């Protein structure tokens, strides 16, 4: 155990829970527990329901797969359809792979000719494309991660290291070793330090065939940790978001979010 610096505690007091986003982004792997040499197909979509494709595909421009040895792994057969995008990954190495989409940049909205305009892009493009004196200009710095995991053979940890920026999940229980009736320990870091007091939402898939979301809410402790006892098998959607003071001059707020798909076996 170690003490959390006072600065961290004060800092986390600034974090506010976000309203739930209207749509849910996810990566959906065809399997997560495999034998080395096997192939998985991963779908990527933004939907209302878990895990169905009913809104739009998730772009794969910012996709990065980390192999068990920490190197970048290539994916095959990328395609973007009307409702979901898709790619294949061959698990050539033994161990745990992290499949991630990370997006960071700025979003802006302002009034123009009586209408609300919306924009999203990099900090460099912002200066050129968004009028800094636009009426009602609201700029938000965003940093989003959407992840899932797959393991060939025994779980390993090298692909799960922190990058030290944004909201990151550091599993203490291997993310492909989740079983009904057992309790998993998971930690969140925000910019590399424990993210305390973060509200984490977990929703089991199959929402189309039930009347309630059946969401489970957990809150991280001083070390950024929360525990989850799985009450049903299947794919689970995990989401957390924080809003805080911006780190970019032009922005009015910073919104950092993390989403993962985790498979729980019976």
């Amino acid at each position, binding site marked *: 155990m170690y003490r959390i610096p006072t600065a961290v505690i004060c800092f986390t007091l600034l974090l506010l829970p976000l309203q739930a986003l209207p749509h849910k982004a996810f990566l959906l792997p065809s399997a997560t*527990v*495999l*034998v080395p*040499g*096997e192939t998985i197909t991963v779908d990527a979509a933004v939907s209302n329901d878990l895990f169905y494709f009913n809104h739009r595909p998730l772009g794969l421009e910012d996709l990065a797969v980390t192999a068990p040895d920490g190197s970048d792994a290539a994916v095959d057969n990328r395609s973007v359809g009307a409702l979901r995008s898709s790619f294949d990954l061959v698990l050539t190495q033994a161990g745990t792979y992290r499949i991630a989409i990370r997006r960071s940049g700025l979003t802006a909205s302002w009034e123009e000719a009586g209408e609300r305009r919306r924009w999203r892009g990099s900090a460099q493009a912002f200066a050129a494309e968004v009028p800094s004196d636009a009426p009602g200009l609201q700029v938000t710095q965003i940093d989003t991660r959407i992840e899932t995991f797959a393991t060939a*053979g*025994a779980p390993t940890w090298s692909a799960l290291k922190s990058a030290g920026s944004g909201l990151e999940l550091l599993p203490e229980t291997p993310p492909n*070793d989740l*079983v009904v009736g057992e309790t998993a320990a998971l930690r969140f870091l925000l910019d590399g330090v424990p993210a305390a007091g973060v509200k984490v939402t977990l929703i089991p898939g199959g929402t189309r065939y039930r009347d309630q979301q059946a969401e489970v809410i957990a809150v991280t402790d001083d070390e950024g940790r929360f525990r989850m006892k799985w009450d049903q098998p299947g794919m689970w959607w995990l989401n957390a978001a924080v809003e805080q003071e911006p780190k970019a001059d032009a922005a009015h707020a910073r919104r950092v979010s993390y989403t993962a798909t985790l498979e729980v*076996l*019976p």
Partner: protein
Amino acid sequence: MNPCRWSWIWVGMLSLQWGAALAAELGVSVEVPALKVAEYHRPYVAIWLEGEQQQIAAHLALWYQTGKGGPEGEGTKWLKDLRTWWRRGGRALQLPVDGMSGATRVPGTHVLHYRAEHGPLAALAPGSYRLQVEAAREVGGRELLSLPLDWPPAAAATLRTRGVHELGQLNVRLEP
């Protein structure tokens, strides 16, 4: 199940002991049931001894489609369907393992016999264990049977249980 046949199997196993130095023995008989299903594949079966921390203390047997030449590709890719065995340590094994892994078995009763001084039991520390038998069948189900036992056994005993879906009768014979 014919009880007469059983007793002969045990007598046969005991007779092996008479000529050897006195050492504990473990006999396992597993029934792979004959199933009337549209598409039958012989089950994958793992048999192991598990310690109190759920770790695998001794791998006893693994029956799966060995080799690469099968019409459905390499058999090792289905080993993960033996979910409990896979998690407890099967996923860390380099297969095949001499004396432990072998081809799938036809329906019927299969008898395995182990001595304390040889093979997988040679390194087994005295303690409480569970004998675990897990079966998974392609396009079928999965079943795990468990029998607690102490090793080495203090007295001769026969432990019995029975599966419902993918396994039939399971008997374990302990000889001190």
